[in-house]
């Protein structure tokens, strides 16, 4: 892969001469002063996974570019989120850069005002490369990163669309074709289900809290909306009940035993061990699937859009951003790092390794980037296709964790036979007061 670093630097140095001419009579646009903060050390707090690890892997390039030293740490998701909140609340976080999970933390962070406003930085030509503009981010990205005043308090970094992974070999063996609707999918799963041989038609998250991301995709396909205009939660309505019935059907009749405890790791294991014919989850899990050291189904997996429901075809979307605590004393240096994380180089690497999808249209549409994608072309198609039908996968509320825990527990309960409608009603009776309290304060 071409090394973009030095090329870019020399490019910038090269343009210094030309832009000084100032074609339109405006004052000459100064360059990003990458080395201005050389010698600083910043701390980055990242989530364990392909994105965080990508930043760690190439951190030395950033240091070469800017002279800023980066101490970074990747922590498993749940712990990272907790630690982040504890430290941000204390007012003295130990990190200058934080990996944000928009779908869980957006409203909480906005309300508490924990992240620095980056709008000024983005407009400052000394700090921001010319190709990074707010418009370059997709609509979803802006929705995630902007608050109601239109201020950007983080940079949208990677988006995760839900797609359907399917085992072509297992499908061929039973003569089943790729389903286009959710009903077809349930039928296909039943046809493919072969417990005697240890093969199951479907695998997915059954674990409370984690399972919400799968369920919401069904919910959206059934035409569900999370909130009405007054902010009331609608996830126990008829669409939700239908979605839960489907969820229950798939995971009780056609899934591996123990699925009630599966998060993405266990579900992915079923797929990569060749024990499951279909899996619906985030698009960023392709690398381990195509890794011969970890997967027994290399080359056998197809990547498709999540099948359509009666009211539409949607892909639940979740986003990661990268931001700077308001309390940080090294904001500019940290901003350079954030910018580097969403830069073309890193965004390309992210996409090409299949570890995530950048929010920036310029990267996604760049032919040279696309050519370098290591994943099968079908994967890239599913990314682009899902982007077009994407919808936020979780409601934008403060108590997201409670929501995922309480409703998620209800869903897991249906996997041992509980009635979907009763469980949803019970869960929402518990959750509604929590939501009300959170909006009041």
């Amino acid at each position, binding site marked *: 892969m071409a090394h973009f670093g030095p090329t870019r630097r020399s490019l910038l140095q090269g343009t210094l001469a030309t832009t000084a001419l100032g074609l339109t009579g405006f004052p000459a646009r100064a360059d990003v002063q990458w080395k201005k903060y050389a010698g600083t050390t910043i701390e980055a707090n990242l989530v364990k996974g392909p994105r965080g690890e990508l930043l760690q892997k190439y951190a030395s390039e950033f240091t070469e570019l800017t002279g800023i030293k980066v101490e970074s740490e990747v922590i498993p998701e749940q712990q990272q989120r907790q630690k982040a909140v504890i430290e941000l609340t204390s007012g003295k976080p130990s990190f200058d850069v934080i990996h944000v999970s928009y779908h869980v933390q957006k409203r909480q962070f906005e309300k508490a005002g924990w992240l620095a406003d980056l709008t000024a930085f983005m407009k400052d030509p000394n700090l921001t490369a010319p190709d990074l503009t707010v418009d370059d981010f997709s609509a979803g990205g802006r929705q995630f990163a902007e608050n109601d005043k239109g201020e950007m308090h983080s940079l949208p970094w990677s988006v995760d669309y839900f797609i359907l992974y399917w085992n072509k070999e297992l499908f061929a063996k039973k003569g089943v074709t790729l389903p286009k609707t959710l009903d077809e999918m349930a039928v296909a799963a039943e046809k493919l289900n072969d417990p005697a041989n240890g093969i199951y038609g479907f695998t997915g998250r059954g674990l409370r809290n984690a399972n919400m991301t799968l369920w919401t995709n069904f919910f959206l396909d059934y035409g569900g909306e999370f909130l009405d205009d007054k902010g009331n939660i609608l996830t126990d309505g008829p669409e939700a009940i239908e979605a839960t019935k489907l969820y229950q059907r798939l995971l009780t009749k056609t899934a591996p*035993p123990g699925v009630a*405890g599966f998060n993405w790791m266990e579900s992915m294991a079923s797929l990569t061990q060749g024990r499951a014919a279909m899996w619906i989850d985030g698009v960023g899990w392709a690398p381990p699937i195509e890794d011969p050291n970890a997967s027994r189904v290399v080359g056998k997996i197809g990547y498709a859009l999540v099948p359509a429901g009666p009211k539409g075809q949607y892909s639940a979307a979740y986003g990661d951003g990268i931001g700077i605590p308001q309390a940080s004393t090294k904001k500019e240096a940290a901003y350079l790092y954030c910018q580097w994380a969403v830069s073309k180089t890193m965004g390309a690497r992210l996409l090409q390794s299949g570890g995530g999808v950048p929010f920036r249209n310029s990267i996604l549409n760049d032919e040279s980037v696309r050519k370098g994608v290591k994943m099968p072309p079908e994967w890239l198609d599913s990314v682009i296709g899902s982007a077009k039908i994407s919808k936020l996968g979780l409601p934008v509320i403060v108590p997201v964790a409670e929501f995922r825990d309480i409703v998620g527990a209800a869903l897991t309960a249906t996997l041992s036979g509980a009635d979907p409608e009763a469980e949803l009603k019970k869960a929402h009776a518990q959750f509604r007061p929590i939501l009300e*309290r959170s909006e009041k304060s």
Partner: protein
Amino acid sequence: MSGIAASEQTPARSGTAAPDIGGWQPPSYWPFVVPALIVVLAVIIFPWAYTIWMSLHEWKVGSPPTFVGLANYIRLPSDTRFVESVWHTLVYTLLSVALPLLLGTLAAVVFHTKFPMRGFLRGLFILPMMATPVAIALVWTMMFHPQLGILNYLLSLIGLPPQLWVFHPATVIPSLVLVETWQWTPLVMLIVLGGLAAIPAEPYESALIDGATRWQVFRYISLPLIMPFLFIAAMIRMIDAVKSFDIIFAITQGGPGTASETINLYLYSVAFVYYDVGYASAIVVVFFALIVALAGALLRLRQTTHWNDAGGVA
């Protein structure tokens, strides 16, 4: 004070009160206690006081606290998740006390007899209770795996169907109790063993001479004499089982759903996932009261059976 000679001899007793030397009282032992007292004040009493203060406030991390009196406590009975966690805790505790008590006593009886390599085997037996709970729990998690775990394999060897262990709400608590029992039976064994060791030999000898069977010897001589130790073991187990956290957290995080969520696990979610520290503090207070109540019940039980002990024995 230090030079006062004894004006009378007190009969030698083992380790009780300070010798009563001319009416001068023990308070001079306070300096021994003060450093520990400071530590206790700082790390135990201060947090407790603060917890009680927090429990009277509505306080979510990130916003300022507001005083709400007893509102958090009133919220508890209608919080179905909390009520269910109480139920889970009681079931879990009952099983985690009864099973180790039974198995530990049996093991103590066996270890009470002399045999070669007893020391080594005993050492082996107590390893589970000393091992790091989190590390152990992670290995148990791998053993519980429905398809690849060794437990289902062992079941298949003896012709039993594979279980879902910690992946099904009906079997999750028994599975966790299995881990807890595996880990803590040695502690009961040690305590009861100590009791057995303290029993003088004469009653045994006379009973055996009189023709009593092993079982009768155990039932009528050993058992009453080790009752106090059984109660101590039960008390220690009860307190530890109610608070059990590491094992459950590492293996199921309270799942599937909330099927294995005990009070302590729920407390963790409320305090460190939802950041509702006011409400969490109220849960702590109620939790503590519950444990004290259980301990009190156990003590009362002991007192009533104490009267039934063979009178006049040591």
